[in-house]
């Protein structure tokens, strides 16, 4: 017995020592590949060489262009062999090498031959290889065969063609869309996988045709679906149909709900989960509809398989965001998952419990979490911290234990992102829960005593400077701040100096002591620190006189900086040093909205840190420059706002015209950007005739025509109107483009001498309320709201009538007012019945305005809104109400 054991071990050692690829070297394998050229092919040997080549490729070895070409050409010779195993390897190898477009031709005829072969498996593989290496022109040649293959009776051939179709749809959609009849037939196939692949492809082909998708779903939910995979697809498509048709149905008679509910009893777990998820994600799902899905998911929470536990807790976590009470029943099962070996499951369980727990369970939960935090990675910890922040906002009375928890974890080891999440949470809690302020600030003070992250130290110092002076005993924070001046790097020291100055400016009793400390900073080794200390001492009266600091000085030193930094940067770059000093008032305040492409950036790179997309060049400055170059506009004053271009012509018309509305205090200038898209025409004396009969408060004062508008060379026409000062005057303008057209010989580029007068009707143009408001955000809405005060507050309620959804109503009002949404309040959580949205901005005349909108659903679709406005001028508060009332 003992001998046998020894023998076994020996065997194993031998095995482990020897690898078939030991010492493998690219050059040698390429030499070996010459065997592919032998007149008498040794199939076994050739297969071995291909295996080695595959191994090399998998190890990250790269072939030069010449090497790859040589291997590819040699491999194509192997088509001569009739050995089945070798042929299968050849197909794989060609796909792995991915020959270049000019080489593909070498192998096309062999593959075409295989695609028409009587041997089914040759056909299937040839289709896959051809579709991998083919381009559009070749595809048109083989399309006929592919269509036949889709309905081939051999399921492998059909699947090969269908999956190829899924890939080709990305590159050659117009060709693949022609196969829909064949694909439709394949959906009825008895072979499970063929049906799965066909269903996927058919849906992709028809995804923009709602009616077709709806028909497909209706017929399949009644018929037979042969594999769990296809069933999952069908559930997904069913959800889509419900989503698209669901707006006008009452809960209770939702189409296809019975189908989804029946899938909860399917024998495959994959299908059960898909159905449960589909139900939980239904728009406006009721508790009654949710219950069966939650019950099924709850059972899976105690499954022995981690994947099922994960899937269940992940789904319940999502449900908890919108329907926390429906998940409460699962809390006991969920609590047992806190100790799950799999940390992803444990984190999801904890964050779900934090969402569903009630006030009485907070302390118990925190105890459990404390043990759990020590052994999870930072990324999980951040999720937990964010969940705790939300919990604290939900139960403000529990701030003591939650704040304690946050301060404890702040002292433990952790990376920047984690610490930042904790600091952000403490800051938010301090802002939102007044009772938590003093303890929170002290926690932050302790943290900066031993903080390794400059960014966080400076953020906290800045925050201390704002909040510290407002506390009952501001002097207790000075020591923490001044310690930074001794112990930190220059960036933090400079931050500390500013914070000290803020305390001095805000608290008169502290002033003499702060001045002593600031004077010590005059000897700092860093320029910036010394400069700041000097500036503060001089402006705050550090010469010894202890007087109340002037409001203007406070505003200058510590006031909110309401100019977007991007705009300031551009203006500074454009500033040419001269006698005239840089004027900060000339910097536009308009926040440029993000380009759509940036917002929609695909999330397919989960870990990528790719360069951020570059924003558009700032157009505000270029407008300012263009307008100031026209003498007639010189006395119009400062430009308040320039709108986004509004198209006045359809796309692809003869003349493309858009207009930018420039708003001044007493004037409006329309800048018509015109492009002539006809090569055979030259336009001259181009003007826009503007009819303002529906805008009678405006009167035209100036028009600047365009002398000549050659093909594809854009030009601008300006028309200026006078309007009542500082008033948001509205109106509609109709526009006609008038010009003299001269024929141009495209060959020589010469224009005819004779021209013909012509005109071209443009779309109408409106001056709307939003043209008189600027989007200017505030960093802390609550503080801004308090500081602007209730003097000119105006509040009223409005019925907005039936709306598609709450989100749509919120969006409409935001767009109507043209103000900047703050703190992400423009996003309405799904299924909400009420929502508060905060807006800020500047009204024409440079008047700050803040708006608080409270929306509520009144009945099934009717939306009611309470609008509260605070501004620095009562007429502006009234004007905002006027805009909503007339909008």
């Amino acid at each position: 017995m003992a001998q046998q054991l020894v023998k076994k071990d020996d065997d194993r050692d031998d095995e482990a020592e020897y690898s078939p690829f030991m010492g493998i070297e690219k050059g040698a394998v390429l030499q070996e590949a010459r065997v592919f050229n032998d007149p008498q092919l040794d199939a076994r040997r050739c297969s071995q060489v291909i295996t080695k080549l595959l191994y090399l490729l998998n190890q990250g070895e790269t072939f030069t262009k010449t090497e790859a070409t040589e291997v590819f050409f040699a491999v194509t010779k192997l088509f001569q062999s009739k050995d089945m195993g070798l042929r299968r390897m050849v197909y794989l190898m060609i796909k792995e090498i991915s020959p270049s477009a000019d080489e593909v031709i070498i192998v096309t005829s062999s593959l075409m031959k295989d695609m028409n072969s009587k041997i089914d498996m040759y056909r299937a593989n040839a289709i896959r290889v051809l579709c991998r290496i083919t381009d559009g022109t070749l595809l048109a040649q083989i399309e006929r065969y592919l269509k036949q293959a889709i309905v081939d009776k051999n399921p492998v051939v059909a699947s090969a063609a269908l999956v190829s179709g899924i890939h080709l749809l990305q590159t050659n959609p117009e060709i693949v869309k022609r196969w829909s009849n064949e694909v439709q037939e394949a959906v009825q196939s008895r072979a499970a996988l063929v049906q799965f692949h066909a269903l996927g492809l058919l849906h992709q082909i028809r995804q923009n045709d709602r009616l077709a998708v709806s028909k497909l779903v209706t017929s399949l939910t009644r018929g037979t679906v042969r594999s769990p995979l296809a069933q999952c697809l069908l559930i997904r498509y069913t959800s889509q149909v419900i989503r698209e048709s669901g707006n006008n149905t009452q809960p209770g008679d939702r189409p296809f709900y019975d189908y989804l509910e029946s899938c909860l009893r399917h024998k495959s777990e994959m299908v059960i989960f898909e159905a449960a998820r589909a139900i939980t994600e239904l728009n406006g799902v009721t508790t009654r509809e949710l219950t069966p899905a939650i019950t099924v998911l709850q059972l899976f929470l105690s499954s022995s398989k981690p994947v099922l536990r994960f899937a269940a807790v992940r789904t319940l976590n999502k449900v908890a965001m919108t329907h926390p009470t429906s998940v409460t029943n699962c809390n006991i099962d969920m609590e047992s998952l806190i100790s799950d070996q799999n940390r992803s499951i444990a984190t999801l369980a904890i964050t779900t419990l934090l969402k569903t727990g009630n006030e009485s369970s907070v302390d118990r939960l925190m105890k459990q979490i404390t043990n759990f935090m020590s052994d999870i990675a930072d990324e999980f910890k951040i999720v937990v911290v964010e969940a705790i922040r939300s919990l604290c906002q939900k139960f403000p009375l529990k701030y003591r234990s939650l704040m304690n928890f946050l301060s404890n974890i702040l002292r433990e080891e952790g990376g920047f992102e984690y610490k930042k999440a904790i600091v952000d949470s403490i800051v938010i809690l301090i802002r939102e829960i007044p009772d938590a302020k003093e303890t929170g600030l002290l926690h932050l003070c302790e943290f900066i005593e031993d903080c390794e992250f400059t960014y966080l130290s400076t953020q906290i110092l800045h925050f201390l400077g704002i909040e510290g002076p407002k506390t009952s005993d501001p002097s207790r924070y000075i020591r923490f701040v001044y310690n930074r001046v001794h112990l930190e790097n220059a960036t933090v020291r400079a931050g500390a100096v500013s914070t000290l100055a803020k305390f001095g400016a805000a608290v008169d009793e502290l002033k003499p002591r702060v001045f002593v400390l600031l004077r010590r900073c005059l000897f700092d080794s860093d320029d910036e620190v010394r400069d700041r200390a000097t500036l503060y001492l001089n402006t705050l009266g550090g010469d010894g006189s202890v007087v109340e600091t002037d409001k203007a000085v406070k505003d200058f030193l510590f006031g909110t900086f309401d100019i977007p930094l991007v705009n300031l940067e551009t203006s500074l770059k454009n500033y040419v040093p001269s006698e005239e000093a840089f004027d900060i008032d000339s910097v536009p305040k308009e926040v440029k909205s993000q380009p759509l492409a940036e917002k929609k950036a695909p999330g397919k790179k989960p870990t990528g840190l790719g360069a951020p997309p570059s924003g558009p060049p700032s157009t505000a400055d270029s407008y300012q420059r263009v307008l100031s170059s026209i003498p007639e506009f010189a006395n119009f004053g400062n430009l308040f706002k320039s709108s986004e271009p509004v198209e006045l012509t359809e796309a692809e018309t003869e003349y493309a015209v858009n207009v930018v509305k420039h708003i001044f205090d007493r004037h409006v200038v329309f800048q018509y950007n015109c492009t002539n898209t006809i090569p055979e025409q030259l336009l001259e004396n181009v003007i826009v005739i503007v009819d303002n009969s529906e805008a009678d408060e405006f009167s035209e004062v100036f028009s600047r025509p365009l002398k000549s508008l050659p093909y594809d060379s854009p030009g601008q026409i300006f028309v200026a109107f006078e309007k009542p000062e500082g008033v948001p005057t509205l109106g509609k303008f109709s526009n006609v483009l008038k010009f003299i057209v001269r024929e141009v010989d495209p060959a020589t580029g010469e224009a005819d001498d004779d021209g013909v007068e012509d005109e071209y009707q443009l779309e109408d143009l409106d001056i709307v309320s939003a043209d008189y408001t600027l989007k200017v955000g505030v960093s802390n809405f609550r503080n801004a709201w308090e500081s602007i005060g209730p003097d000119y507050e105006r509040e009223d309620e409005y019925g907005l009538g039936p709306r598609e959804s709450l989100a749509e109503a919120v969006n409409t009002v935001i767009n109507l007012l043209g103000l900047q949404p703050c703190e992400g309040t423009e996003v309405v959580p799904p299924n909400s019945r009420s929502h508060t949205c905060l807006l800020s901005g500047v009204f024409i005349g440079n008047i700050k305005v803040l708006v608080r909108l409270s929306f509520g659903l009144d009945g099934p679709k009717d939306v009611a809104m309470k609008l509260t406005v605070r501004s620095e001028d009562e007429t502006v508060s009234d004007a905002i109400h006027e805009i909503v009332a007339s909008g």
Partner: protein
Amino acid sequence: MILAVLFANAEGNILIKRFHGVPAEERLHWRSFLVKLGADNLKGVKNEELLVACHKSVYIVYTILGDVSIYVVGKDAYDELALSEVIFTITSAVKDVCGKPPTERRFLDKYGRICLCLDEIVWKGYLENTEKDRIKRLIRLKPPTEF
């Protein structure tokens, strides 16, 4: 989309890798991330016991089979449950080719056939075949038995 299929040995060296729709510059990052995930969690795990993780909207299902650890990464329709199906097909096919949960040596001995199996199972990010018996025939260019 199945974003990646990876086989690694006990030391974390890659034996086979397949990426679909993952930019070349991110592949190395994924390799090290997965291998570390395995090193942290696969110790003491039974053959074919599935572990799961997620990173933002990407799911990872992984397991160990003999000396080889297998990782499958997916997103969208290929969530943890669909990936379980994929990895189950892969482990069944590998066991079938190797006769049992493989040692590294055995895995390398059957390297070519395992590559062929993988080629039948995942085709540029899509699941193509799920039954080991059919795959066994397909890699030898034999039509499926049910046909």
